[in-house]
């Protein structure tokens, strides 16, 4: 398996950095090499949030920075406009259509429309929108094993938070391809 | 024959490098005698400054280190953390403490660091050759204010005890003078009080010792003592500025 480069973008509070971290944790649990790198700087406060994840199944990750992405997740419109060009030809773009009405302009990539906020609302918890999106990404690309995502959820939602485990697993599976 | 005087073990048996008539020797002696009398020489750690007393470790018979100019309170802060059961003190002049090292002394005092600072205030830079200090008095001559310090050109002298007394951190602040036997006896009591309060773990203790610099003042040692009395004490009044709260 070659290196897989992922980029997650949205605004602060959309769980964009968490999405990237969950993929990185899952890669680690699956004995793969991975790096997670957030954008950082003064723009961190209240502005855009994005992070890069590089997964390398065999060799250590050489470079944690990317200039093109195998998989791009955009959670809001400014992110689509800014980062659409980053997707490799033949790569995947996951669009949060709940908040992005505009269509992507690229025709050489696979576009997956995921109404993440709407699906999360239907489940009764708007905060799971990033998990809905994560499910769409992982189930479509198999970039990390689904069981490893479960493992993280089970670690995160234990004890007093155990009630949230089923909700998150449900959110992870709620999106269906068109 | 009955011994009526014995040299303190706190001072090494060497001649100091200080100028004749300089009160550094007096300050050294009362501090080291006090540690000796309190049985603390083996437990004391001293921090020397930059200035004439940079070589204090050649005379004071305790574990010592030098510090960069003005940073002795930062150095002592860390030493006290590594050795919480030791007695730690800094010995600093007016250029070191009241000019370049103002941030370190103010913050150590505000934190209530459990060490003692002995502040030698002679109103002039000794080692570098008589330049103006932050505590040089208005009208006092120095090589960087040859006609005397003016408020217009150099601002006002700093009153460190008064300044530190505005803080809630320090446990004990006193100003003493080294220009007469009576004042020196009082100074030694203040030094002892500082060490006692440190030993009790009550916080930061500070003793300012008004001192003479006959060489750079251009006065004989006796005249320097008089000059201190007539000029420094009126501007830098002696007394206790902070006492630990009695519970």
């Amino acid at each position, binding site marked *: 398996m070659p290196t897989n480069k992922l980029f997650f973008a949205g605004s602060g509070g959309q769980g964009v950095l968490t999405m990237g*971290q969950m993929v*990185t*944790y899952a*890669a*680690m649990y699956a004995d793969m*090499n*991975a*790096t*997670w*790198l*957030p954008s*950082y*700087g*003064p723009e961190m406060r209240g502005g855009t949030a994005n992070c890069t994840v590089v997964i390398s199944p065999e060799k*250590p*990750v*050489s*470079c*944690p*920075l990317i*200039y093109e992405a195998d998989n791009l997740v955009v959670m809001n419109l400014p992110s689509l406009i800014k980062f659409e060009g980053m997707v490799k030809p033949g790569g995947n773009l996951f669009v949060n259509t709940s908040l992005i009405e505009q269509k992507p302009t690229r025709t050489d990539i696979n576009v997956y429309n995921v109404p993440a906020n709407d699906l999360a609302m239907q489940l009764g918890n708007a905060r799971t929108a990033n998990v809905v999106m994560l499910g769409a990404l992982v189930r479509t690309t198999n970039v990390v094993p689904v069981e490893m995502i479960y493992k993280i959820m089970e670690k995160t939602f234990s004890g007093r938070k155990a009630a949230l485990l089923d909700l998150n697993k449900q959110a992870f599976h709620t999106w269906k391809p068109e | 024959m009955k011994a009526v005087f014995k040299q303190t073990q706190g001072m090494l048996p060497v001649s100091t490098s200080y100028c004749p008539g300089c009160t550094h020797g007096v300050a050294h002696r009362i501090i080291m005698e006090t540690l000796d009398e309190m049985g603390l*020489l*083996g*437990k*004391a*750690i001293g*921090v020397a400054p930059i200035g004439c007393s*940079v*070589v204090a*470790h050649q005379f004071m*018979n*305790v*574990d*010592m*280190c*030098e*510090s*960069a100019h003005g*940073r002795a309170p*930062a*150095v*002592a*802060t*860390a*030493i006290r*953390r*590594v*050795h*919480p*059961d*030791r007695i730690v003190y800094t010995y600093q002049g007016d250029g070191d403490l009241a000019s370049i090292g103002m*941030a*370190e002394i*103010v*913050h150590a005092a505000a934190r209530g660091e459990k060490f003692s600072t002995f502040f030698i205030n002679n109103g002039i830079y000794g080692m570098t050759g008589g330049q103006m200090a932050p505590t040089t008095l208005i009208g006092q001559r120095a090589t960087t204010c040859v006609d005397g310090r003016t408020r217009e050109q150099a601002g006002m002298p700093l009153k460190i005890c008064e300044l530190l007394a505005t803080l809630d951190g320090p446990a004990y602040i006193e100003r003493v003078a080294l220009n007469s036997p009576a004042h020196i006896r009082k100074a030694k009591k203040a030094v002892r009080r500082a060490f006692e309060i440190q030993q009790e773990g009550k916080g930061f203790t500070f003793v300012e010792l008004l001192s003479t610099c006959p060489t750079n003042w251009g006065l004989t040692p006796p005249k320097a003592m008089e000059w201190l009395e007539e000029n420094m004490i009126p501007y830098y009044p002696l007394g206790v500025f902070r006492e630990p709260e009695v519970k």
Partner: protein
Amino acid sequence: MSEKVLMKGNEAFAEAVIRGGVRFYFGYPITPQSEIPEFMSRELPKWGGKFLQAESELGAINMAYGCGAAGGNGFISSSSPGIALMQEGMSFLCSAEVPVVLLNASRGGPGIGSIQPGQADYNQVTRGGGNGDYKMPVFAPASIQEAIDILYDAPALADQWRNPVMVLVDGLMGQMMEPVLMPEPKKPLESADIPTVKPWAISGSEKGTRSVVKSLRLQPEVLEEHVEHLFEKYGRMEKELVRVETENVENAEVVFVAFGTMARLVKEAMEILESQGVKAGMIRPISLWPYPYEAFDKIGKNCKAVISAELSMGQMVQDVKLGVEGRWPVRLIHRVGGMLPTSLDIVEKTRKILEEVR
């Protein structure tokens, strides 16, 4: 060894140095390493250690000096402008032979510069940014795991040599997360054991000898003797502390020299060049002082050019030239100001250099 955990660089650095025996931290917040003092304030007391936020970088380095002089295992961290403020203290620590571990998360300069990664502190950290003749080992890890391993060993190394030891990283490494293994904690040095373990330290003369820690030596002959003693020690460090990773230098057509973050960008560029049929190798200095000059002797006869890849206007390139000794053309690929080249930029510039030297 415990199981792998995903850790952010800054927190991993702090945890590793605690596990390596550090029990005292002094620091002043500065981006991009402020998570280190935050972590230390939270975690160090749990290990029985002491944290203090200093009033300034001057306060911090001098607290580190007091701590080391008293025999404690101290750690301070800062970033380029803060490290610049500490230079007087570093010269002092080296002269007085006081051990401490320093971390420099270097950023773009000069001046306040930027908070993005930079390597323009290379001359400052390898040549001694303070006054006088002195040296300090500087290690530049390229991954969080490597940084952990270096920081874990650093307190013992500083003690062994009675010298400050610096670890050079940047904000990118501080913010990045990678799966890592944390080593088992070492037994820390207790205050009560300092008089016997470090008899030179100032801990009170009741231990039987009087200790003085100092750097002033007014008599020229005494100072000369002291500096010669220091350089005898530095000479042994030069033999024992060189650390370097080399890859394919024997057969390479082009050999890169890069450290830290830049080495990882170069590594990806090498993979691309390889796929294009260009044989590329790399010398990755892990110790920047002492510098791995001898690694250059491994470069093979196919080499057409040696390229120093740096995030500065060309500082390490001087050391590269010393290592190359005129045997191959030396070129520079660089970005500054906190800008990073992409691996594709590096590939393109390398191809141009190869055309030019053929």
